């Protein structure tokens, strides 16, 4: 049986998984005294890769809310090995689909009425899977087209159950150094927050207001009267998803325009709003032929500390290279207050960051167009992330930020955009 539906079945699979991982780890520990150092390292790496693959395979088979755990874990990069992150980032979220009868029953449970009593028309077939639920097109009685996101019933309880199972399985898995208690706790908190659609509605409203100065960004309007914590009704935003958009073979000019707009969106969010639309999944962006971009799914939003943003801005403006005081400040934010700026691993990280930005976003030499479609750029970005991870670059907020940055780069890479990144970065400054 590939899919496990009941929580008991899922718990059993998680336990099996824990036992399996612990088993192979024990096997390695037994062999270790007999292995030479070099071989031991190689063997450990191979073992971790096998475990990572196995873990992803298992998580994928489980589906449902537990998928969300995998996604959340892939965000908690500071706690995981590089092989694990690679495997986990391949996960995509699928909540179990609801048939029309269940969807109607769940809608009534959440809203007190059936969808056809509230809307003029309502499509029983969902057009997309959403985080923890599915989305249907509908038309309100006043004639407005809306998207209605409906959550799978009792998903909160299911997630709590899954985490209980994960904690039990974690007993074995922590042996292998894959999970830490803090990771699981943080992931659970994050996911449970996502189950509350009123929170997402507030995020939508906040971003709609804050991003209003960017006329090329469209964010759906929340219809509070048709929403609850498990149903979210939003206005329909025009645009196509990445794959469909690319099918029409858009011109290079349009690709560049969209890339520039994405970059502007990123800096504006960071410097003027202080928060990030934190799910850089391509499915959350809608593209239009006039260069405008629709942003959907605000379940996961990250508000960042001002000092982290200031610190990140330094990477672009590079004032820290000549200013030791600024440099020590950055080190404090990124590595903790006690870290010495002369520590070798700190210097390795900072050198790598400097090299990367000098190469791709040179600040001092006038406007420069960066071809993000070039695979070399993405490779360098990946290499940078690897160096930082290897050297225990330990600021969770900062990792979140770099994840958003690489998410944006990934979008532009798929679009094959050419963008004057430095020039755009220069236009924005963090709030003092």
């Amino acid at each position, binding site marked *: 049986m590939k899919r496990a539906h009941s929580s008991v079945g899922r718990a059993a699979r998680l336990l099996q998984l824990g036992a399996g991982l612990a088993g192979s780890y024990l096997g390695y520990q037994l062999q270790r005294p007999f292995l030479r150092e070099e071989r031991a390292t190689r063997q450990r790496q191979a073992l971790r890769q096998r475990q990572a693959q196995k873990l992803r395979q298992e998580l994928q088979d489980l589906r449902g809310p537990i998928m969300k755990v995998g996604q959340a874990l892939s965000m908690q990069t500071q706690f995981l090995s590089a092989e694990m992150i690679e495997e986990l980032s391949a996960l995509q979220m699928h909540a179990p689909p609801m048939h*029309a009868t*269940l969807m109607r*029953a*769940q809608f009534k449970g959440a809203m007190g009425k059936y969808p056809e009593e509230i809307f003029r028309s309502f499509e029983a077939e969902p057009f997309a899977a959403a985080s923890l639920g599915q989305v249907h097109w509908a038309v309100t009685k006043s004639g407005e087209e809306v998207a209605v996101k409906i959550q799978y*019933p009792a998903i909160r*309880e299911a997630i709590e159950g899954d985490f209980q199972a994960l904690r039990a399985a974690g007993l074995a898995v922590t042996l292998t150094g894959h999970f830490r208690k803090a990771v699981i706790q943080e992931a659970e908190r994050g996911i449970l927050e996502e189950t509350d659609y009123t929170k997402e509605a507030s995020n939508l409203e906040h971003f709609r207001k804050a991003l209003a100065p960017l006329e090329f960004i469209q964010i759906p309007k929340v219809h509070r009267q048709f929403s609850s914590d498990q149903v979210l009704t939003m206005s329909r935003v025009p645009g196509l998803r990445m794959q469909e958009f690319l099918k029409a073979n858009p011109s290079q000019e349009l690709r560049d325009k969209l890339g520039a707009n994405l970059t502007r969106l990123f800096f504006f969010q960071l410097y003027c709003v202080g928060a990030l639309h934190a799910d850089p999944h391509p499915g959350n962006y809608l593209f239009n032929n006039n260069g405008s971009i629709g942003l959907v799914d605000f379940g996961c939003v990250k508000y960042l500390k001002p000092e982290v943003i200031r610190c990140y801005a330094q990477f672009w403006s590079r004032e820290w290279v000549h200013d030791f005081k600024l440099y020590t400040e950055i080190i404090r934010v990124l590595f903790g207050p006690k870290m010495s700026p002369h520590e070798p691993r700190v210097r390795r990280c900072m050198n790598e960051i400097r090299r990367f930005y000098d190469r791709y976003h040179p600040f001092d030499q006038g406007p420069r167009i960066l071809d993000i479609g070039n695979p070399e750029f993405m490779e360098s970005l990946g290499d940078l992330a690897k160096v930082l991870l290897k050297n225990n670059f330990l600021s969770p907020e900062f990792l979140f930020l770099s994840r958003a940055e690489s998410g944006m780069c990934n979008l532009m890479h798929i679009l094959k955009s050419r963008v004057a990144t430095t020039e755009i970065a220069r236009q924005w400054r963090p709030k003092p």
Partner: protein
Amino acid sequence: MSLLNFLLRCAVNMSILMYMSKAAEKTPKRPRTGARAKNGPGKREKNKEQTKERILRAALELFKEKGLEGTTTKEISKRSGIAEGTLFNYFNTKEDLALYFFQKETDDLIAWYGKETRLQKAPLAEKLFAIIHRQLEYLAPYEEFIGAVFYRSLQPTSTLSPLSLESQELRLKYLRFIREILAEAEEKEQLPRVGSLGAYAVGLFYIGVVTFWLQDRSRGKQKTLALLDRALNMGTQFLKKGSWDW
């Protein structure tokens, strides 16, 4: 209700119903209809049915207010406007009334399903989901009353007990209805040949779901919805694999 009670009930149900399964299979699917049935029920019978419904409505209102135990025959008579003596011509006990309630429920269910043309084409898991959900919706306004009835039906002397003759008739009607739906799925090869046993499994599953539903305090009884959906998906998928040869 304790787990032991529930298991006991299941065991009793199962053994009796398995015996009765032969009867269910032998009985023709469409019972022979007499001349009277063809022209609809006679006036006298119609009146009788109307009175019964009036009593039931009054009783249900009272059960809602005062519970099954707290309601007296006198009060039912007063609320329905039917003399206490006459009342006994229709229902001997409150349990008879409850049984009548379930008969109405089953009739309503079968009539409703007959009209649901979209559902009739849906996959088996959705069909069964919709049927059980419809039953729960019917019960929803009388949750406390149903809880009390469940407790009563555990007593072997009760008319509601699975051992009583009166309740068997109702049960058979329901089982035949489910059996027909399963037979259709068998024909379409959505299901291996499960025979009458499948209908009993669904019947027992329904009792289990009602027990769960009665305890479910989640908003909109969401936990029951999730349980139903997952269990039916798992059940139908498991049977589809054909790992069991019936």
